[in-house]
């Protein structure tokens, strides 16, 4: 059952991700990216992280991508030829080289994965019993209080910063 969901979702995530970096029209790229976000959200559900899955859709697909689409439409962004039709071969080769290196290293790393892990109190049975969202809410206001508070300041900075930069003088 899990495989039945994992394989198509993974394929969807990879396919749309490839579209994001290969398509010429930025609007299509943005829409493909929305597809990636939904696929990942599905995977998060499979991984029993319901809250992250919902946040992924609401914030990423709902807020960030709307912003992207808005700016793309506002700016009349020109089409961009796909990488293999462009003349900047050195950059392309650099990109491919770095990525190949990365994939190779990751393959070695994942092949030898051992995860001893510190034992925390939250086994997946416990999480299921209490409810994922409830547990995260409780953690955010106790264990992870300080990052939570700093994040509110980051959002304030982003609001002020975006306003400062975008308003006309």
């Amino acid at each position, binding site marked *: 059952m*899990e*495989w039945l969901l*994992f394989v198509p979702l993974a394929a969807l*995530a*990879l396919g749309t*991700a490839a579209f*994001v*970096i290969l398509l010429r029209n*930025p609007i299509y790229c*943005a829409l493909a*990216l929305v597809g*990636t*976000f939904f696929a990942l959200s599905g*995977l*998060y559900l499979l*991984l*029993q*992280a319901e*809250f*992250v899955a919902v946040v*992924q859709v609401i*914030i*990423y697909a709902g807020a*960030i991508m709307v912003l*992207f689409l808005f*700016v793309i439409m*506002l*700016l009349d*962004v*020109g089409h*961009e030829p796909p990488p293999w039709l*462009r003349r*900047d071969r050195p*950059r*392309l080769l650099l*990109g*491919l080289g*770095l*990525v190949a290196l*990365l*994939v190779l290293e990751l*393959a070695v790393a*994942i092949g030898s994965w051992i*995860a001893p892990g*510190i034992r925390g109190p939250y*086994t*997946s049975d*416990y999480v299921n019993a209490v409810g994922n969202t409830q547990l*995260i809410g409780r953690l*955010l206001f106790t*264990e*992870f209080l300080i*990052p939570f508070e700093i*994040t509110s300041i980051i*959002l304030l900075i*982003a609001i002020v*910063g*975006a306003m400062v*930069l*975008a308003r006309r003088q």
Partner: protein
Amino acid sequence: MVPLSHYLILSAVLFAIGMFGALTRRNAIGILMALELMFNAVNLNFVAFSRYLPSTMLQGQIFAIFVITIAAAEAAVGLAIVLGLYRNFKTINVDEINLMKW
């Protein structure tokens, strides 16, 4: 159950795709989207670990939530920068935005 390594491989490939895009795209918004892909790949790893590690503090999921929030803040500021850039340069192609030596 799908083994952990499958999620790790998926995330690694997503990260590599994002990295390739960030290095080769010439359009500022395209690069920003590629960066979002990289952040998402990391998030997939976080959530997968938080599920598969024997039993945890749920740091993985919490971390993913913070990464999403910060990515939103960064995207807002980034798009504002792109907007201002377009006003002055009339383009967002990073090859043409090159007053100083790139």
